[in-house]
């Protein structure tokens, strides 16, 4: 029996739904690239505009990543608190509620029902159901932790990050009459999520899995976790200013945003060094190496996508030209992939074999899928970046028309269609592998 607590099982349906939504997200992503590359007929654009498919692509992303985090939290909390989840029933109820809301929202988008705010399109009253789902989750996890009466920093960071995440979503609920103020608070959701709350969740889950797979002393991990969290919040909170340069806010944001956000790569770098150090000095005899590959690959791509690609356009002198161009898209893709997609994949590869009762599993497909997806995503990022630099130069520096620049970029979107199909292949392999894990072949491999 590999599961210490039977209520950890609630994680499984969360993972299952998350994986299927991931698949769908990438199918829609390929469609988006196609819409850029070829001329869609007017009748089709009239009934299925780009805006609708883009809303579906991004909402699926956020939904499945959050379901993944929640599933992993449910898997981890019993082991951390050494007791069963407060109410598995509530966990299933919450899943049903969130998936029901998500599916309704997506069907709604297809019918033109939307709040019309990028990435946060889920309209009233569905947005309140999302809040309800989040509250059930926090209550369930919170009660488990409170009843256990033993707090660890990892729990604190995880729970703190989740509360932070939920609270920030509230800033999305009101209607803001002033467009500039609207975007000001839009970033309290988006930026303070991916460069604040989600980083806390990611740091906690990563630290927990690293302790499990390497058996390094918890005190060491938690000490560095404090430093990471401190640096994330120090740079990330005021770093929100890197989105306030051109939205009608005072000039001092150019200084504040530029300075703090330029430091944002530091905690990410620290996470890379940490993971590397713990794995080098591991004391556990855990079988298999895929989980280590994922841990290292994740932290490196987190750094490249968020740290490096983020830094590249965060200074106002550069952002003036790249703001709102395909450079942003390049960064968005690699950052989300490195930081949060791979984190979820790693968590799934940690939890799934245990849920399936497998001490060791055949890692060949999973390893191939990791490299396939990561290399493809890296190439996608480069293609978006080339398109973005062309756009920046032709449209913003030379001052030629928008469509003149798009014509120059078109070739790269054709490439992106091909890369999208390749990524889809990698995702299918990942999903199939995780859902049909097989015992390791005798003598096939040893770490």
């Amino acid at each position, binding site marked *: 029996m590999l599961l210490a607590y039977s209520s950890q099982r609630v994680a499984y349906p969360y993972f299952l739904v998350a994986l299927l939504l991931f698949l769908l997200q990438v199918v829609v992503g390929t469609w988006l690239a196609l819409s850029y590359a070829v001329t869609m007929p007017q009748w089709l654009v009239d009934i299925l505009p780009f805006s609708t498919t883009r809303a579906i692509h991004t909402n699926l992303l956020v939904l499945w990543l959050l379901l993944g985090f929640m599933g992993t939290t449910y898997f981890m909390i019993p082991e951390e608190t050494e007791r069963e989840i407060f109410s598995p029933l509530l966990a299933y109820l919450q899943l049903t509620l969130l998936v029901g809301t998500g599916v309704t929202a997506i069907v709604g988008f297809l019918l033109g029902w939307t709040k019309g705010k990028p990435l946060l399109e889920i309209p009233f009253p569905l947005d309140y159901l999302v809040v309800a789902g989040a509250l059930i989750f926090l209550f369930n996890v919170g009660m488990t932790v409170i009843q256990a009466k033993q707090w660890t920093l990892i729990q604190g960071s995880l729970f703190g990050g989740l509360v932070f995440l939920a609270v920030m979503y509230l800033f999305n609920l009101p209607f803001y009459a002033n467009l500039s103020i609207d975007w000001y608070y839009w970033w309290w959701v988006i930026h303070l999520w991916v460069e604040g709350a989600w980083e806390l969740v990611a740091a906690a889950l990563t630290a927990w899995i690293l302790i499990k797979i390497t058996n390094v002393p918890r005190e060491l991990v938690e000490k560095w976790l*404090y430093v990471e969290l*401190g*640096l994330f919040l120090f740079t990330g*909170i*005021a770093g929100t200013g890197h989105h306030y*340069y*051109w*939205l009608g806010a005072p000039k001092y944001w150019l200084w504040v945003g530029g300075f703090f956000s330029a430091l944002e790569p530091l905690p990410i770098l620290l996470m890379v060094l940490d993971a590397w150090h713990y794995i080098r000095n591991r004391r556990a005899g855990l079988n298999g190496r895929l989980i280590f590959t994922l841990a290292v690959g994740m932290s490196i791509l987190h750094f490249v996508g968020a740290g490096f690609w983020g830094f590249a356009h965060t200074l106002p002198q550069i952002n003036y030209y790249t703001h709102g161009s395909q450079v942003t898209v390049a960064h968005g893709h690699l950052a989300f992939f490195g930081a949060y997609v791979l984190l979820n994949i790693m968590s799934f590869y940690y939890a799934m074999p245990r849920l399936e009762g497998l001490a060791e599993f055949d890692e060949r497909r999973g390893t191939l899928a990791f490299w396939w997806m990561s290399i493809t995503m890296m190439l996608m990022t480069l293609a978006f970046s080339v398109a973005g630099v062309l756009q920046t130069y032709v449209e913003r520096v030379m001052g030629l028309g928008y*469509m003149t620049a798009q014509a120059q970029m078109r070739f790269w979107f054709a490439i992106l269609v091909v890369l999208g199909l390749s990524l889809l292949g990698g995702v299918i392999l990942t999903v199939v592998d995780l859902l049909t894990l097989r015992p390791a072949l005798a003598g096939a491999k040893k770490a």
Partner: protein
Amino acid sequence: MTNKLAKLIFYLGTLISLVLFLALTFDTHRQIQTLTHADQLSEQVVAGKRVWHKYNCNDCHTILGFGSYYGPDMTKVYWRRGSEGIKAVIRSPEKFTTWRKMPRLPLTDKELEDLVAFLQWTSEIDTQGWPPQDQKLRGAPGRAVTLGVSPGAVLFQEKGCFACHRLYGTGGQQGPELTHVGSRLSYETIEKVLTDPRSTNPQATMPPPMVSHEERDRLAAFLAGMK
């Protein structure tokens, strides 16, 4: 690194950043009123913002540089096309797009007016000079206006002529540059073109401008003076 130091970094780091951020947020709320001309945020502008959300324009077009990148940025679109230009595109996008299409959205006339008011208000937000490609536009019609204090110049902007034509190098690419059109064409010819572009050139693709006789004459006078 001691444990104590690690905790200190956490608490102090978070606190400093948070306090600074909240203080600046407070100050931003005060200053943003002026920077966005919040006093001109009329009911119509707010209604226009709701229209902007209702049709999810933002998931194809950026505004203030935020949103999707499938179509051009809308922050300063009012400078580029004027109210009639914006309305024309929304009414029949198929006439203005080439290989990348925009959907035909069922806006009512009122929604269209509100949306234009919203975009006009938006174009006046002080964006610290962003986006770079639109900054020159401020100069072009402005210069034309001051040249002759001409009502024709104002019409040139409002009726969307900039969508296809350039003055002083700014404007659309489909039609010819008109900075020196007065030295090529007479007042009468320009008037003919404005009445029916095909009357002087049967192959002309330019749509007849939607202007009254009086407006047409003002436009012709303005353009004939551009030598």
